[in-house]
């Protein structure tokens, strides 16, 4: 989801002849047999680079994604909602950590990914460049944004690259609560006062189209899909996943008594699908290029956090160095692992 295939247009790296056709064929054979590829296995350089790009974009999205929701932690309407929102935002931070670790197994250092994010060179999901104006936005994000994420992430649990697939299994287990707490916020608002219902409708109006864009460009415009599918990094096309999301979400909106902001949306009896109106791709590409409502603010917030944490990182490094000099390394902790090792 958070991977949108953002900056791959025309830049798809291709396997080189130098890597040997036999080797490449053996690799593809393993993929076709649904074997997982693990970090130390041989892999085509293009497979490695595609994964590094996709996993790091995914990780950045989780991290930047903490910002729009974090914006409402101090203003959550009840203590319960506040505790839930903190837990949710903390999960997103955790998702970022799992994914950075998975990307690192492909040989890119964490620090390098951080530099790419903070310099603005790396992409992250377009959705996080929209502002959270009211409390209902927190409901809409959980329901729609996490909902779209789940739709996209479940097939990634079967991705051919082992560490990515395992990270996605862990993430998917945690996402369900994100979506349900969001829907519950929307439900509460939609059963509330006139003003609260209006607030819920307004949030849906603003988040609906950006949520559909989360699945990335339409299939006609996404040229990398074929190779990613052959490598079983991707299992379904952008449009297939988007359609599934529309089909499950429209009835949920009906249940809430809210209106999807799409005049052309209708049920197609013949295909048994909801048909949506056209997406305004110019908005999508503008946000990707850095011209969304919050692009600057998001990056500045990340940079500020990184700078503000510098003294903590330096202090921790100094402390680690000093205690290493003063005592045998990792006393106490290593002892636990050592003693239990025989039993493992």
């Amino acid at each position, binding site marked *: 989801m958070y991977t949108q295939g953002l900056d791959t247009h025309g830049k798809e790296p291709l396997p080189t002849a130098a890597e040997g056709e036999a080797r490449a064929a053996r690799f593809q054979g393993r993929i076709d047999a649904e074997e997982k590829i*693990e970090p*130390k*296995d*041989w892999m085509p350089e293009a497979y490695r680079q595609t994964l590094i790009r996709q996993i790091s974009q995914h990780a950045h999205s989780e991290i930047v994604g903490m910002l729009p929701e974090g914006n409402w932690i101090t203003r959550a309407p009840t203590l319960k909602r506040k505790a839930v929102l903190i*837990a949710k935002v*903390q*999960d997103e931070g*955790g998702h970022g*950590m*799992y994914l950075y*670790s998975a990307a*690192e197994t492909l040989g890119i*250092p*964490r*620090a*390098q990914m951080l*530099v790419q994010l903070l310099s603005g060179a790396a992409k992250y999901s377009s959705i996080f460049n929209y502002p959270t104006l009211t409390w209902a936005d927190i409901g809409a994000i959980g329901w729609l944004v996490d909902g779209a994420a789940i739709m996209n992430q479940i097939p990634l649990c079967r991705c051919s690259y082992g560490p990515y697939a*395992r*990270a996605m299994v*862990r993430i998917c287990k*945690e996402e369900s609560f994100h979506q349900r707490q969001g829907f519950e916020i929307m439900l509460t608002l939609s059963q509330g006062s006139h003003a609260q219902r209006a607030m819920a409708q307004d949030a849906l109006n603003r988040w609906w189209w950006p949520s559909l864009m989360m699945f990335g460009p339409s299939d006609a415009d996404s040229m990398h899909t074929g190779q990613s599918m052959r490598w079983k990094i991707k299992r379904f096309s952008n449009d297939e996943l988007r359609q599934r999301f529309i089909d499950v979400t429209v009835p949920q909106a009906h249940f809430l008594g809210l209106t999807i902001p799409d005049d052309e949306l209708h049920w197609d009896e013949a295909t048994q699908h909801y048909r949506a109106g056209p997406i305004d791709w110019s908005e999508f590409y503008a946000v990707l290029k850095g011209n969304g409502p919050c692009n600057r603010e998001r990056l500045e917030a990340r940079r500020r956090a990184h700078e503000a944490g510098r003294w903590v*990182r330096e202090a*921790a*490094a100094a*402390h*680690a160095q000093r*205690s*290493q000099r003063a005592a045998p*390394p*990792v006393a106490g*902790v*290593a002892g*636990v*692992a050592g003693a*239990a090792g025989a*039993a*493992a």
Partner: protein
Amino acid sequence: MTEADWPLFEVFIRSRSGLEHKHVGSLHAADARMAIEHARDVYTRRQEGVSMWVVRSADIIASDPEEADSLFEPARDKVYRHPTFYAIPDEVKNL
């Protein structure tokens, strides 16, 4: 400017007593104490564990996947190590 990464640690968690520790992922930390604390926050937010090990990734010695064939080959033709290799008449019980 790129700051150097803190060392990488691998994290192993015992999900409940009676089970073995299992690899769950990795993280960066300045030292072992911090690795344990980060592992708590990153990998056990939903009571996934009752005990954790962390070990520096650099200290793990792994077998080479390219050598997997020759490394594991000796066990391949020793089917007699499995109980099903032996034909025992049906009338014989408790065997």
